């Protein structure tokens, strides 16, 4: 074998399964440009009408954080339980709330 050749950059694929719904991550494809990435995503991830919309995003452009990587990052969300409706006491018999 000679040198490693290239297969284009990596793109993350997001599918909207029904109009009005949010786009969900499906996987990734290789492509040399935007059009090829979209075409490859269509052929790879929507062969059975799985989608009404497709996004492709260069993988290297994604900025991410996880709770494992940085616990303190999500900490502000854990100590304000009064943000949840179940925090509140309500009188017996109240309806439609």
């Amino acid at each position, binding site marked *: 074998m000679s040198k490693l*050749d290239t297969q284009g950059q990596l793109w993350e694929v997001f599918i909207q399964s029904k109009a009005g719904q949010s786009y969900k991550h*499906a996987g990734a*494809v290789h492509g*040399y440009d935007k059009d090829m990435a979209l075409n490859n995503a269509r052929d790879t991830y929507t*062969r059975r009408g799985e989608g009404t919309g497709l996004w492709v995003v260069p993988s290297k452009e994604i900025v991410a954080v996880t709770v494992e990587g940085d616990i303190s990052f999500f900490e502000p969300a854990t100590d304000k339980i009064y943000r949840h409706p179940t925090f509140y006491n309500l009188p017996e018999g109240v309806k439609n709330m």
Partner: protein
Amino acid sequence: MELTQVTEETLMKEFQAKIDADAKIEPNDWMPDDYRLHLIRQISQHAHSEVIGMQPEGNWITRAPSLRSKKILLAKIQDEGGHGLYLYSAAETLGVSRDQFIQWLHTGKAKYSSIFNYPTLNWADIGAIGWLVDGAAITNQVSLQRTSYGPYARAMVRICKEESFHQRQGYEIMWKMMKGTKEQRAMAQDAINRWWWPALMMFGPKDGDSPRSSTAMKYKIKRETNDQLREKFIQKTIPQAHLIGLTIPDSAINLLEDGSYTHGEIDWTEFWKVVNGDGPCNKQRLAHHVKYHEEGAWVRECAQAFEDYLMK
């Protein structure tokens, strides 16, 4: 130095605790080297199998007996290519490039399922592949939907949704042939005679002889052992064969009172022979992949030049 060792130990403990709690491991999470290496090997081998598996079926596209069966076969083979891509993507999240995986395939460092080293001699073989080979693959893949590595598990969910069409189209071919002429029934029987044992071999060596099984089970990469999965497949497939009048080429098969079947033992000498490269089509399959990959190099170079031009 002391500090690093302690940290590693803690990380390992946390990792195993996550595995034990059935949590998924994601690409950027810490993972031990043997976990990463096992996944790189297993997922890429799985991806290569999907892609090499296109060859024995592609052999019949131009000779499919009707337009209906030709269209179905094309769609099925396209699915296999797609499954390869899902799996390569999952494998790439472990930090190895697509090019590298393909190079490892071409140099023989990476393997693919030995089943695809058997030839497809008549149309009934396409039926037998869909029904038995895809059937065995599904049995394994359903179990792998619960594998501990997130990207692999998600690829498996997607693949399982698509595979059941494959198995049904294969069984339909066999059923049609069994309702046909005496010659067609003989072709169907000949196909199962040749494919039954190789299909059972797809589950890998016996549990005791499977060198990496314990790592795979400890880390929940595999959720069931080779023998457990093989047994499941045997028990559900025997009645399917009998229903359409096919005989399984195993004289030890007997129906027991509890509804299960006894069966014979795989010829392990043949198994190891094919695994180690001495199957009927090993050289042909790999040479074909290398040839078309190299002949396609100019397409990749042009596309790359175009991308570079756009970036300027």
